[in-house]
């Protein structure tokens, strides 16, 4: 018997460390979250907090000098009604098993579509590659599917676009092409790593609308990574806030925006320029900047910039995770008993 909304992906104690000459960089340091079927989870934080590395770790596409540990449990549908749970972290990165997950069960789209698409292959070639890998090897059928998916993402002239190269297209079109490429196999989870950050605001709105409608149509989950709180508010159901490789707060989008608990989350929300605020009032920036998590000592990661930090407590240990209500959790000494 399955619950109403079951977790399609669960990360347990996910860690990704980089061994550098200067020390160990703990990009992702013990991260736990669940993504539910059909829902969108937002992963938010400043640049350098480890959100992208977390996403890459889920599919085990981290660079060779990084090492990952922990569990990434994917609930995969074998037949309608039956599921199996597999741990992606246990898979061999060169093996066949993980290639069945990548691009098929879990697809990923990236921030910069110009560099994310191969410059020397046509759009059609790249989409067809995904189709040949996961859907069908039959040429005619594959081409039909490609044209269909391009149409679905809002490309005006799919037959022309299939022949084009990435540098022929505008930014928005490239991102649509990338979405088409990611969705042609109807994945259960789409990981979107800052997909609209490099786009104009109007194009951004179009792409976000597109993603929402496709999600509804395909019934897929989305892990939306961004530093833009406005996008979070619009797109997500659940929000996870990361700082320096650790999750500091998570909850529904309503909880986070109406009752932010962690000082970092509060500061983030305060720093959004308010429409209607007095003209000369200064922007509320968070003091200091994100430190490098190189051989970071055991303490609350936000200590150096926190206005409510308590010496002797916040700088001696990592705050434990406290469940406040329902799904709202926070890691802060202010709330631990």
């Amino acid at each position: 018997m399955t619950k109403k909304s079951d977790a399609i992906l669960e990360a347990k104690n996910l860690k990704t460390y980089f061994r550098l000459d200067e020390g160990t960089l703990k990009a992702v340091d013990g991260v736990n979250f669940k993504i539910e079927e059909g829902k969108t989870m937002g992963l938010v934080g400043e640049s350098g907090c480890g959100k992208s590395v977390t996403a890459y770790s889920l599919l085990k596409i981290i660079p060779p000098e990084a090492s990952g540990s922990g569990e990434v449990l994917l609930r995969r549908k074998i037949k309608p009604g039956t599921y199996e749970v597999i741990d992606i972290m246990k898979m061999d990165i060169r093996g066949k098993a993980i290639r069945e997950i990548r691009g098929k069960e879990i697809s990923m789209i990236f921030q910069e579509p110009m560099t994310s698409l191969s410059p020397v292959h046509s759009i059609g070639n790249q989409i067809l590659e995904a189709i040949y890998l996961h859907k069908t090897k039959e040429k005619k059928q594959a081409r039909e599917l490609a044209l269909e998916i391009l149409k679905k993402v809002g490309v005006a002239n799919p037959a022309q676009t299939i022949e084009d190269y990435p540098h022929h297209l505008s930014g928005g079109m490239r991102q649509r092409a990338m979405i088409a490429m990611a969705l042609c196999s109807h994945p259960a989870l789409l990981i979107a790593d800052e997909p609209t950050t490099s786009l104009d605001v109007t194009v951004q709105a179009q792409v976000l609308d597109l993603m929402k409608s496709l999600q509804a149509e395909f019934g897929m989950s989305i892990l939306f990574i961004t530093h833009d709180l406005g996008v979070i508010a619009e797109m997500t159901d659940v929000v996870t806030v990361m700082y320096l490789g650790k999750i500091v707060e998570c909850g529904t989008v309503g909880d986070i925006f109406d009752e932010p608990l962690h000082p970092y989350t509060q500061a983030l929300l305060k720093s959004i320029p308010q429409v209607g605020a007095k003209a000369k009032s200064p922007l509320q920036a968070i003091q200091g900047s994100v430190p490098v998590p190189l051989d970071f000592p055991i303490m609350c990661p936000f200590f150096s910039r926190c206005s409510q930090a308590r010496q002797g407590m916040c700088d001696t240990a990592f705050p434990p995770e406290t469940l406040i209500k329902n799904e709202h959790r926070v890691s802060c000494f202010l709330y631990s008993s």
Partner: protein
Amino acid sequence: MLIVLLAVSVVAFIIIQLPPGDYLTSMISRLRSMGVAFDQVQIRAFEKQYGLDLPIYVQYFKWMWNMLHGDFGKSLQWNAPVRELIGERLLLTVIISVLTLLFAYVVAIPIGIYSATHQYSLADYGFTVLGFIGLATPNFLLALILMYVFYKYFGISAGGLFSIEYQLAPWSMAKFLDLLKHLPIPIIVIGTAGTASIVRVMRGCLLDELRKQYVITARAKGVSEKVLLFKYPVRVAINPIVSTIGWTLPVIVSGETITAIVLNLPTTGPLLLQALLFEDMYLAGSIVMLLTFLIVIGTLLSDILLVWMDPRIRYVKRGI
């Protein structure tokens, strides 16, 4: 491109005129020292015959005009038309240069790919060391060492392109096979330096590309590592390699010249040296010019190849 060829011809002509005195005066003084006498009338007759009494720029135009008609002048040293002397030698130079070029790329590209994908492995270090030594060893030194080894331990003379019986024989299948038997050593000697630098370029380019975002996208799509390697980063990294043909070809032709002298190959190299030592201007200038001409053609072909291979450049050339 036409401008380049014109410029080359001017340079070649300057080269020809550079040595103080010309062939005629040195020939006369040489013959004189052997006891042959010349009087002024005979000297002036010679001058007129070889056009040496005309002002320089007229000599240049005369030379260009003749060349366009296929007449490259006469070698005063051999007393034969330059065209005949150069003919077969130039053909062999072309054959050796092209084959060496192919050899260099066919060997270097796989090694470069392997080195990049197995960075810091034992094989990578081994290839790097070999590559460094290959770059550091001058062609002629390698040729000398090989000749020494072959002569001392096998008693064979490793030089030359043909066995004695085929040297003056007309072309035939047998002669061609004999040529093939003798080709490996010159090609390896001339190609070492080129191969070594192409390996480094390939390795460097590929390492750059391997870290790029589109490789990660492909991996996230579930493409297998082997397919991924060749379809994406290698395919992109090959483009700068194609553009290296532009400077590899002159290096190979240049190396071929000096290696031919050491290995005593019947190509343009030894002929050029002789011509220079005897101030045989038409021969020397023509050789330099024709070699440059070859290189320019080769570079043009590689540019065309690059446009064909890289869609990004095609896009620019569309004029948008």
